[in-house]
């Protein structure tokens, strides 16, 4: 099993790969060449065909036409088994490790043909020898659940090497990592490609990491290759243009200055609430968000951001402390939210802010179905009024939907988020609480959604933005807090913000 390490990196090539689903062409004559030992970035918006291409290469899909070469020889990959026999492996965006088992156990059970009775002494010895060939240490004997995200991602990659893979596809490998962890993991991958141990094809949305680590890149748009070349010879703008074509990209409004005497809209004082496990406490000592500013909260997921949001949204009981909106105690009832103009956009809008099987029109009316045009409560629902209201918003926010009567779950992620933004950003907004608004969305949707948030800020809304995407926080925020272990541990105005320092606080190194 360990002789895989003696294999060297292999080169992989696709020629004229085409994949049709019915009348829909997901991949159109895609040729891609990844020479042995290179680090290749695969760029493209959501739905551009990146994952379809990778799934064809890995044997999850059978391409309609086209060939695949490994080390210059034509190969048929009919199933994932064929792919692994050829030394091709994939690391997914989300972890595929068994949380309750140790790293060593995860490695051993991932192997094909594990004996029915495992000789752990022998396996451990083999593993120790294997780890000596790796450039870093990993704790092998603790449950995976106790590892940090970066360590888990490293373990995923190590697992592929342990299985003897010599060509790796990494699907957005840094999306769950802190900036520091991302640097470290990609540096490690980079070093292995340089040493000729492995060839890497990385799917990514993030230009900085592509610039820093990849040799070559290929861009897909609507299933076609729109550009390829050396990373060093192309700048970010050129690559972005290849990704999105000539469609206009929303640009941020210039940032209106925050007036010095802007009134605080949201004030949180000595708030205490239990976290998900009930064992730890979320404590927010003092946080205020003023009208016309965006306050960003950075942090690795699982450090209490979710619970803090749930308290603000009235989904979680608090033990102590107060939440004030415009000076009035706020308990997140519907009437309070309506009279104080508080809007809430949770992450994963389809899961948290929509009723998936209800229609687009109905979903867009959730905020005001019980009010008439002058804001007075009404008891009767009028389907026509709801549709007319939604039709206006769909037009204004460019929500792409087959019909207003389609269930909202039939929309793409970006359009669900547009629909939710349309619902929450109309009318007067005094306080906007947003969480990971762009998670999983494509380039143009991200730009547009950030522009909308900035617009709301410039119109005088106080915005509390929680995000795991540091770039997003740096782009939008006026002030950034770092949340770690249930508390706000660091604050910096945007002018003084450094990725380095923020990252260290996120990782709890202070």
């Amino acid at each position: 099993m360990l002789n895989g390490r003696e294999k060297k990196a292999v080169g992989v090539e696709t020629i004229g790969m085409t994949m049709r689903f019915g009348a829909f062409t997901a991949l159109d004559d895609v040729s891609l060449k990844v020479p042995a030992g290179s680090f290749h970035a695969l760029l493209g918006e959501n739905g551009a065909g990146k994952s379809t291409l990778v799934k064809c290469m890995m044997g999850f899909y059978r391409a309609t036409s086209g060939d695949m070469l490994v080390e210059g020889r034509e190969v048929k990959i009919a199933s994932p088994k064929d792919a692994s026999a050829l030394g091709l492996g994939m690391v997914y965006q989300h972890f595929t490790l068994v949380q309750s088992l140790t790293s060593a156990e995860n490695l051993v059970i991932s192997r094909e043909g594990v004996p029915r009775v495992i000789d752990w002494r022998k396996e451990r010895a083999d593993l120790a020898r294997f780890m000596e060939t790796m450039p870093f240490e990993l704790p092998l004997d603790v449950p995976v659940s106790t590892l940090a995200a970066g360590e888990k991602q490293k373990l995923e990659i190590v697992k592929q090497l342990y299985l003897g893979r010599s060509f790796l596809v990494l699907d957005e490998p840094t999306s769950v990592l802190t900036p520091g962890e991302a640097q470290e993991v990609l540096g490690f991958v980079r070093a292995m490609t340089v040493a000729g141990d492995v060839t890497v094809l990385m799917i990514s949305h993030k230009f900085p990491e592509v610039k820093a680590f990849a040799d070559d890149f290929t861009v897909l748009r609507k299933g076609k290759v729109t550009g390829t070349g050396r990373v060093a010879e192309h700048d970010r703008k050129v690559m972005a243009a290849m990704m999105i074509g000539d469609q206009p990209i929303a640009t941020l409004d210039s940032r209106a200055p925050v007036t010095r005497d802007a009134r605080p809209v949201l004030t949180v004082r000595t708030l205490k609430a239990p976290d998900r496990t009930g064992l730890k406490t979320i404590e927010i000592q003092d946080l205020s968000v003023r009208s016309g500013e965006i306050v960003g909260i950075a942090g690795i997921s699982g450090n209490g951001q979710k619970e803090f949001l749930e308290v603000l949204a009235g989904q979680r009981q608090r033990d102590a402390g107060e939440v004030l909106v415009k000076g009035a105690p706020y308990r997140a009832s519907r009437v309070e939210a309506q009279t104080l103009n508080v809007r809430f956009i949770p992450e994963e809008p389809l899961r948290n802010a929509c009723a998936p099987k209800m229609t687009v029109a109905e979903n867009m009316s959730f905020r005001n179905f019980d009010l008439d045009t002058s804001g007075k409560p009404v008891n009767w629902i009028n389907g026509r009024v709801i549709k007319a209201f939604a039709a206006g918003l769909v037009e204004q926010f460019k929500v792409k939907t087959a019909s207003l009567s389609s269930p909202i779950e039939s929309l793409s992620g970006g359009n669900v988020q547009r629909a939710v933004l349309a619902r929450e950003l109309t009318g007067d907004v005094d306080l906007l609480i947003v969480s990971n608004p762009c998670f999983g969305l494509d380039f143009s949707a991200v730009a547009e959604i950030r522009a909308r948030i900035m617009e709301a800020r410039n119109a005088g809304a106080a915005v509390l933005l929680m995000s795991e995407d540091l770039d997003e926080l740096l782009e939008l925020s006026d002030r950034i807090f770092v949340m770690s272990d249930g508390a706000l541990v660091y604050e910096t105005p945007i002018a003084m913000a450094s990725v380095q320092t923020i990252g260290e606080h996120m990782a709890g190194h202070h």
Partner: protein
Amino acid sequence: MTEIASGPVASTLGGPALAGALEWAARRAEGLVIPLAALIVGMALFSIFIMLLGKSPAQLFDLMWRGGFGSWFSVQNTLSRAAPLLLAALCVALPARLGLVVIGGEGAIVLGGVAAAAMAVLVQGAPALIGVILMGIAGAVAGGVWIGAVGALRHYRAVNETISSLLMAYIAIALMNHLVEGPLRDPASLNKPSTHPMDPAFVVGAVPGMDVHWGLVAGIIACVISWILIEKTRWGFAARIAGGNVRAAQVQGLAVGPLIVGFCALAGAFAGLAGMIEVAAVQGNANASLASGYGYTGILVAFLARHNPLAIIPVAILLGGIDASGGLLQRRMDLPDATVQVLQGMIFIVILFSETFYGRLRVFNPDLWKRPA
């Protein structure tokens, strides 16, 4: 990959008026065609069962038609049986719109009947209309408290409502047995322990021109009111949001707890009313016959109607007809009296299975008509 269309709304489906009508029709037809198909498949499976018994399915369905709908007498018999099914089905359908699977309507029916019978004894001699109204209120309150408690346990204590409602139905039946054999027993009821017979003035009679009691009308009105509540009022809309996604409802500040308890209480009140009608129109007092399975058949009715209160009306009549034909099947074809239950069980399984087809069939789903380009 999941982009649906690239133009503005409705421009993707050809001429807006025709396309709109087609789309509307397709979305509506889904909820009609799939349950009907499931019903037919269920009956086909049942035919196999009948053939295995060495009998003729053709003769069976012929008898079933005659027993349920073939004559004015059988139609009236069918409608009488449909009356409690309407209310029992609402006890399932209303919580279902909030995402709750309540299957213990039988308990609310039983307690509603006992409460109504007790009230009848209490207000003996009162004017007829007042007596009937008080009996109705007693039945509705008893049933409402029972199922309302199921909703409260679910929302505030995370007790699974399916299990708790079923277990509470057993408790309700045991409670009824205790009451009619003990504190509320009419000493004159020797063979079949019962409560005191109610004042004859309180008897709910027949609808003029028919041999069907007013319970049928009450059931139809309850269905219409429920439909209006769900489709046309803010509370119904809020309930649908909560049923579609509790987290979304909470983020919108909707009072999910009161909604759940309120809808469950209303559902239980309807079932309790069914028990009251059984007492006031059929039995004349409360006894063990109250637990005759209407609550369970109501589950099937609600699922076949896809929890749409208006659809419950025809479905309850259909199931009432199947029920009504049971005696005839037994006599003419020498089939065991559980035969009808076998049919109901088969239909129910097929109905549950058919749930997986919703949104998947291209002809009913306009969102699949236009593939992404």
